[in-house]
């Protein structure tokens, strides 16, 4: 099997109209491989999050193509795109977006439920992922009773539950103190990154750069490192 997980070619995205029109992502091409932890870094407004949204099948580009494991993402219809995100992508949002009215285990079980798994079976499996992130004992608590680091772990468990090939981390350390942030990313690097998984992290926290396999620098919607990016 080819080890290219993501192949992005000439991605361009414009926002706004008329004089307010601006280019968020401009002719961006890159590849990411399985078993690779790829960082996209750059200042605020450089287009990192827009690029992340395009490659994860959330935001349609104005030009260019994205293939994830040989699936041409933007040729998919709406429902197929939702299926693609459910089966191939694991999201860890900056604000976690956990449901405060569900227990931790139920939050983790959401992708499994969306995959039409029986409820009890989904909860049982969610427990296994909570064990992976070391939070099995907190399974019955609502996320609001957990610390920031623990909530981040729950979000990781939820992302893992869909069995994704590509995991997307949006500013994973933004809401955490330095030590906790490092521990989380270290955990991701050692326990989440597998041979058949690629992890893309958007961040501007240079304290966690050491965990990257490769770093792409963005500024004004362009990749500064050309196509390949720099090895960390």
């Amino acid at each position, binding site marked *: 099997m080819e080890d290219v997980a993501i192949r992005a070619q000439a991605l361009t995205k414009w926002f706004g109209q008329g004089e307010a029109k601006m280019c968020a992502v401009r002719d961006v091409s890159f590849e990411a491989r399985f078993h690779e932890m790829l960082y996209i870094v750059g200042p605020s407004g450089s287009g990192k*999050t827009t690029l992340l949204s395009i490659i994860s099948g*959330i935001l349609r580009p104005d030009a260019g193509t994205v293939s994830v494991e040989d699936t041409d993402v933007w040729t998919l219809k709406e429902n197929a795109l939702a299926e693609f995100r459910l089966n191939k992508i694991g999201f860890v*949002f900056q604000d976690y*977006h956990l*449901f405060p009215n*569900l227990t931790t285990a139920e939050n983790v079980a*959401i992708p499994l439920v*969306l995959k039409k798994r029986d*409820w009890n079976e989904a909860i049982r499996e969610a427990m*296994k992922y909570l064990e992976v992130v070391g939070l099995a004992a907190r399974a019955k608590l609502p996320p609001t009773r957990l610390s920031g680091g623990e909530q981040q772990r729950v979000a990781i468990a939820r992302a893992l539950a869909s069995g994704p090939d590509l995991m997307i981390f949006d500013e994973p350390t933004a809401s955490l103190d330095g030590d906790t942030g490092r521990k989380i990313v270290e955990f991701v690097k050692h326990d989440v990154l597998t041979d058949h998984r690629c992890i893309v992290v958007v961040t501007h926290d240079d304290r966690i750069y050491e965990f990257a396999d490769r770093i792409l620098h963005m500024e004004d919607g362009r990749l500064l490192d050309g196509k390949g990016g720099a090895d960390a």
Partner: protein
Amino acid sequence: MRLDAIPSRATRTVRFIGQHRAPARALQSKVGIVPGILRIAYKLLVNDKGKFAALLMGLTFSVFLMIQMTSMFAGMMKKASATVMNTGAKVWVMDRSVTNMSSAVPMPDYVLDVVRSIDGVKYAVPLYSGVGLVRLKSGMYQPVTVLGLDDTSLYGRPNLIEGNIEDIFAENGFVVVKDEEYVKLENPKMGTEFELNDNRSVIVGIAKVPASGLFGIPTLYTTYNRAVQYIPSMRYTMSFVLIEPQSPAAIPHIREEVARLGYETVTEQGFIDKITTWYMFHTGMGVNLLLMTAISFVVGLSISGQTFYTFVLENLEKFGALKAIGAKGRELVAMIFFQAGITGIAGYGLGIGLCAGLIALAKLRVPDYASIVTYQNLVMALGMVLVISAISGYIAVRKVLRIDPYDIFRG
């Protein structure tokens, strides 16, 4: 535990082959909606206790008002038709201008003779209905409804709980109905004497009837001739002719023949409907009922719609996250309508319970309280609650379907 300990997707697929969760899977394949997603929707709803309570309160109040208003109307209509139901005659003949029991227009005696001669009439008897004034032992006056039954057959007589019906033929004999109004006659007993329009009268029987009247006055039964004799009347005296047809098929012919005389024939249900129609469209009760029901609907819709919309707005990011994770539009729609439906049904049940409880409580204090919860009321309220839920859900769905998961990333 490391990730390696969790079976890979390939292994999981193998494990699921051969499993038969027939009903749940069948539901999934038919409607494409996962029962689990509805469970999540349910938990999201009920675990947000404040919002759920506000939603329930709004709908409960709305259902309570709707049921209460329509029940009062049903109760009043039952009371307004009490004599028709208590008499039990299948067919009634009356003047065309009669709108309800209290507006009886006396008919000449020949009408009875003609009716008796119509083919298909098994038998026909006269009924007198009028209002008299009773002077009680205490010296107080009390209006009463007096029903005069056919002297030969006593057709339409009530069931006695005390006394013997033949005693009604005794001198000045009257049967009193023991209903909510009974106390207004100072709880008469067998043999109690009183004056009816200055005529001496005696209680010879105490009766029970299925329904008591609307106007809150006691009812006395006597013979037709005595009623006519005691109550001042015009030249004609017969209020109604009661008919027992040979078969229901004979009724149209009887109706035609009676119409030739210039009078009207209605069935028992027809008379009840006629009374209801009159109260509904000629007394202002119908407009009031409609207004109150409409107000209840609007109150319910605004509280429910507003609260549900706020609930969805507060969870908009979460719905966006679900969409980003891979939830399809139809799954989000199902979640929202399920939440709206659950709230509607729960509010409906609570509203009915509250209304039934308050009616029961009111009847303890005011036995004559006219309110009945009927199946029609329940079905109507259910329909309106479902409309409220559907509109609330629709407003919320429009918002949720417009969420762009990209906004979740942008924060």
